[in-house]
C-alpha cells in the first residue's frame, strides 16, 4: 500500500531503455549476466586474495591476479544512496509513462564498499532511505527475453 500523497512504487524493471548485448560483452563481465539469467547474483571474486570487486575488471586491483570466480552472494544489502528521477531523459521513459522511478546504489553485505546499481521495487520513492535493508530479486524487462536484471525489494 502506498501512503496518501506518496508516489506509486516501481513494480518491475524499466522498459525500452538500453540493455547489454550478452554476445558482445568483455569476457571478464560475462559471469554477472550469466548468473542473472539463472536468478543468482554472482559477483566477481579474486581467486587469490578472495576480495570481491564490482565493476568487474580483468585484474584484481589488490593482488594483481587475473584469476577470479563468479561467486554467488546472499543478495542482502542496504541502500547506500538513491535518486528519484522525475524528468525523462529517454524517449521510452516519457512514451511509456515510467516516471517517477528510482535508481539506487546498494551496499552488499559481503564486503565494505561492494556496491551495485539497481532499482528498489515495491516501495514509494518517499519511503526509500539510506540504510534501508533490501534483498535481491530477478525480473525480465518487458518486450525482450535475452536479459534478466537483478532488482531489489525491501527485506
Amino acid at each position, binding site marked *: 500500500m502506498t501512503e496518501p500523497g506518496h508516489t506509486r512504487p516501481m513494480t518491475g524493471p524499466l522498459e525500452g531503455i538500453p540493455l547489454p548485448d550478452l554476445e558482445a560483452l568483455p569476457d571478464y563481465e560475462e559471469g554477472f549476466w550469466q548468473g542473472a539469467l539463472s536468478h543468482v547474483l554472482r559477483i566477481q571474486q579474486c581467486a587469490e586474495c578472495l576480495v570481491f570487486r564490482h565493476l568487474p575488471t580483468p585484474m584484481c586491483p589488490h593482488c594483481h591476479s587475473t584469476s577470479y570466480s563468479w561467486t554467488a552472494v546472499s543478495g542482502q544489502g542496504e541502500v547506500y544512496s538513491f535518486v528519484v528521477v522525475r524528468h525523462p531523459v*529517454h524517449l521510452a521513459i516519457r512514451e511509456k509513462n515510467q516516471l517517477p522511478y528510482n535508481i539506487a546504489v546498494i551496499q552488499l553485505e559481503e564486503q565494505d564498499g561492494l556496491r551495485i546499481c539497481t532499482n528498489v521495487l515495491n516501495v514509494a520513492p518517499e519511503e526509500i532511505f539510506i540504510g534501508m535493508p533490501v534483498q535481491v530479486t530477478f525480473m525480465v524487462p518487458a518486450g525482450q527475453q535475452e536479459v534478466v536484471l537483478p532488482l531489489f525489494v525491501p527485506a
Partner: protein
Amino acid sequence: MTTNITAVDTNGIKDKAAIVGIGETEFSWNSGRSEIQLACEAIKAACDDAGISPQDVDGLVRYEMDSNQETLLVQSLGIKNLRHWECVAYGGGAGNAVVGHAAAAVAAGFGNYVVCFRAANLRSGVRLGQAGGPERITGGQRAFAEPWGNLAPGHQFGMFVRRYMHASGATSRHFGWVAVTLREHASRNPRALRREPFTIDEHQNSRMVAEPLHVLDFCQENDGAAAMVLTTPERARNLRHSDQIVLVEAAAQGSGPQNEGIIYRPDLAVAESTNTSRDLWARARLGPEDIDAFMFYDHFTPFCLLNLEAYGFVPIGEAKDFVEGGQNIRFDGLLPTNTHGGNHSEAYIHGLTHPQEAVRLIRGTSTAQPPHKTINRVLSCSSVAQLSAAVIIRRG
C-alpha cells in the same frame, strides 16, 4: 591498495607561463555554425586579446571530447608551424587541466604561444543530458548503470549529492543559496545565457529533475567556444596586456581509486578534489587563506559545498553554514565565487570559462568585480566526481 598518499610538491611550472589572451564566441542555444568555426572564432578572439596573430600559435591543447582536429585548425587559422599538440582526457574532467597542460608546454619550451580551447554545440548538437533511443550496450560501466535508468549525469551526481546531504546535514536549501548567488552574478554579465534573478523560494519550488536535484541546480547545455593563449612571462611583457601580467602559479590533477562508473568511489560524500587539493597546496606552498576568489566547476550547485571542503576553505561538513544566505560567496563577500555566473547561468563550456574569469578578476574587468578587495590570486577547479583538476592563477 594505497591508503596513505603523500603529496607531490614539485612545481616545475611555477610562474613560467602567463595567460596573455582570453576569448570566446557568443553563448547560445543554437550557434547556427560548425564546431570548427566556433573554435576558430574563439581562438582568434583570444589572440586578438593577446595582441598576436593566430598564425603565431604553435601549440594547441584540446579536450578529448572536442571534435576539432588539429590539422583542420592549422589549415583554418594559418598556423605556420604547430610544435606541440595534445588532448587532455574526457570533457569536464579536462576543465582547468588544459590550462595546466598548456602552462607545462610553455614552461618546457614546447611552444611559444600555446592555446587551450573548447568549442562545441552541446545544445543544438548531441546533448550530454539526453539519452538516445533503444540500443544494446557492449559492456563497461554503462551496462551496469543504464538498464536501471541511470542514464544521465544528473542521475550519477545525484547519488553523490544524496550521500553528501546524509553525511553533512546539508539540505536542498543550501544548494539553493549557491544557485541564487550564481544567477545574481550572471544578471550582471551580458555574456550570460540566464540572467533573470530568482529567490531561494523559487529555487525550492522549481521542478524536481533527479531528486534531490532541482532543475535550478543544473548547469546549462548550450553552444559556444572559449580559448586562452599562454606564453612565457618574458614575451607577455611585450604583448597587449603587458601592464597586467597573469601567471599560472601551480596546477594539479587527481583521480582516486575506483573511478570508473562514478558511483563506486570509496566515499560518495567527498569530492574527488581531495586528491587534487593535496598536491595543489603542496606545489603552490600556499593555503586557502591566500586565495582571493574561487572558481568551481558548477555542473551541479552542490559541488560548491563539496569543493569548498575539499580545498579546505571550510572544515568538512561546514560548507552548508558558509553558503547559507549567499553573502560569503557573493562577489562582494568573503570569498567571491563564480563571479561570471558559471556553468549554471553564464554558459557551459566544459569549465574553460572559469579560468577565463580568474584572468578577468585579476585584470579588474569582471562584470561582478569585487568592490572591496584587489584580486591577486584565484583558485579555479573542476571536480566531475571521478576526475578533478585545479589551477592557481595570480597577478604577476
